[in-house]
């Protein structure tokens, strides 16, 4: 139908258009002042869902990064303990070889025994190394020491301390002390005790070299495995921080406004609003009565 136009309908439509313009202005203004594209999820449900997902991912990545950093400290503690233990064992080996010298008297062997006793203490304290109050060679134990006075390993077979560094990836950060140092009578500590006893009795203890070598072998392989895990953890840490940055960028792209674009839109909208005001003023004012005398 062809609309009849009256002063009232013109007023109404002018007002409605002004309202529309002002609503657009207000929306842009809200975007400008909040810095966010979305004022509410229904503005763009897909982006809102994406933003929630990205935010949760970001939180998870930062937790993984923390886990990785914590794991790295564990591995570093294990590493330094193993390196120190290896040095101790090398010194023990040297002393054992020295004990084979036929010219040595009981006093000299006694002196060797004293040093081995010292080294035994060192080794035990290395094996009982702790990180944040926990023994790194018996990670899940709460005994305070990995090896007690009877050289009993306090850890649980099959247990390990793991750090989650990805949705499905974990890295073991402690080391099985029983595999490295042995347990009870078969442990490296008992071996050193035997050496001390042998040297005290003025014996040649070179027949023990094989056992010492086997222990050093175990220490070396533990150190190698520990080192490789440390490398994994460090590279994962770098990857995690890159991922975190990507997620942050994506979140910003999804949620934040493009300032230049919004300013431009606001400017355009302002022009449109002023135009609507001007047009309204022109169309509402004149009346036939102005022209009749």
């Amino acid at each position, binding site marked *: 139908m062809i609309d009849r136009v009256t002063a009232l309908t013109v007023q109404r439509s002018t007002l409605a258009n002004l309202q529309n313009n002002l609503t657009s202005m207000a929306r842009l203004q809200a975007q400008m002042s909040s810095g966010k594209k979305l004022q509410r999820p229904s503005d763009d449900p897909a982006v809102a869902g994406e933003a*929630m997902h990205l935010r949760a991912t970001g939180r998870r990545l930062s937790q993984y990064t*923390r886990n990785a950093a914590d794991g790295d400290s564990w591995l570093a503690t294990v590493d330094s303990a193993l390196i120190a233990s290896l040095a101790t064992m090398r010194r023990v080996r040297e002393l054992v070889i020295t004990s084979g010298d036929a010219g040595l008297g009981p006093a000299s062997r006694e002196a060797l025994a004293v040093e081995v006793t010292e080294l035994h203490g060192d080794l035990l304290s290395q094996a009982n190394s702790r990180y944040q109050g926990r023994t790194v060679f018996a990670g*899940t134990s709460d005994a305070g020491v990995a090896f007690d006075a009877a050289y009993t390993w306090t850890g649980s077979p099959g247990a390990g301390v793991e750090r989650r560094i990805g949705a499905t990836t974990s890295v073991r950060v402690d080391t099985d002390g029983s595999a490295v140092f042995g347990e009870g009578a078969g442990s490296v500590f008992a071996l050193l005790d035997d050496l001390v006893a042998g040297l005290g009795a003025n014996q040649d203890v070179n027949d023990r070299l094989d056992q010492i070598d086997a222990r050093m072998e175990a220490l070396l392989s533990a150190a190698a495995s520990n080192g490789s895990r440390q490398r994994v953890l460090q590279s994962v840490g770098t990857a995690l921080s890159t991922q975190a940055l990507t997620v942050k960028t994506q979140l910003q792209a999804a949620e934040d406004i493009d300032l230049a674009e919004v300013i431009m839109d606001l400017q355009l909208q302002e022009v449109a609003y002023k135009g609507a005001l001007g047009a309204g003023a022109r169309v509402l004012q004149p009346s036939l009565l102005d022209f009749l005398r």
Partner: protein
Amino acid sequence: MGTFGGISTALSSLIAQRTALDVHGQNIANANTRGYTRQRAELGAITTVQVPSMFATSDGVGAGVRVTGVARADDAFLDAKLRTQTAGAAYLTARAEVYATLESSLGEPSETGLASALSTFWADWHDVANNPHVSSTRAVLLDDARQLADSLHQLHADVATQWRQARTTAITLVDQANATAANVAELNGRILGVTVAGGAAHELADQRDLLVTQLSDLVGVTVQPREDGQLDLFVGGNALVFGSTARVLTVAGAADFGQAAGYDATPAYGVHLEWADRPGQRVPMAAGEVTGLLTALAAPEPDGTGGILTEAAMRLDAVATSLVERVNAIHYTALTTGGTTNQNFFVPLAAGSAAAQIGVAISAPQDVAVAAAGLGANDGSIGQLIADLGLASDGPDDEWNRTVVETANRTAAALSRSTVAELARTSAEQDQLAQASVDTDEETVAMLAAQRAYEAAARVMTAIDEMLDVLINRTGIVGR
């Protein structure tokens, strides 16, 4: 025609034009009156009695003009269109408003919403699993778990409050509809009185049309006009207004959220309308603001087409249930550092809303269990499993994300539908106004026309007077 017939013809015109001017005056006076429909004086020429016969004396000139009636420039189709569109738009707008409020009470996406509380909760489990021997991490976990439970309580309380407010609003609106219906019935009676007396009750009809449009907005009435000028209004097929009697609608059904959501009643039942004189009989509603609110207040349906608010509460309950059951199932198997096992982390769910009752069962930090049996006191492997729930494909996080996105989707759809309906309503209103409203320019022109016609009729009278003057005063004085 007699000698003085012309004078009475001119007189009829003077009277008719003055009446027309009066009607234009009424139009201009009501140019800004809401609901006023412009009127026109309908003029009709008076014909002489012309019966064809041998000695017919008529000369065929008419006997002047008369006002045959005052017409109201309404258009029943435009009025009906406006009412239909108003009812439809009011229904959709009410729903959109409910959705918008619900959406804002969910408070997502943000740094402070439930999603963030869940993320914090899982991160705390990571920390406890990493350092089971540190009691401060457990204390933090317990605090954050309580906060998470509080978030769920708050969300559920918000939804329940919104439901109660919507019900109060529905009651107020139904009261308003009843009062309006009573007014329409009264106006029907008065209009009938005026029309049977032969008068025109245009101003009363204007008032009644306004009220009927208001009723459409509230409860979506259908209108049936009667021959005698009365309007009958129907809701759900039954008369709300029948002639000069009005019936009364009441809000019935669930009185509290618990009944609508099914916590206190099985099966759940929503809110509906009944006729006051027919209790127990549900009024089927199709449109209007009240109908929109009723759909928000309805009971949940398995296919997601039930009440907006009750279904939102169900979704919250699903999040809470998933959280409680999944965490408890794993925590139950874990050992504390003291070796205690078979303990629930959250209080096991009883009947009713899971989101409203979720609570942390553990109060002492040392009772948080993360160790697996036989793996040492400081083992954290079970805690790690709980932390991994944050990633579970149908875990609480996932459930919550889906709730938020679905609510956002539905809100967006409801908002755009209501915007479209509102546009249609505006255009229907514009059409109706274009037909009914007063244009001052038009009235000015009509006034000019009436004024000129009046002047000309007066001139006709003067001309006849002068003509008669010649006849009366100048005849028979030839040569004087």
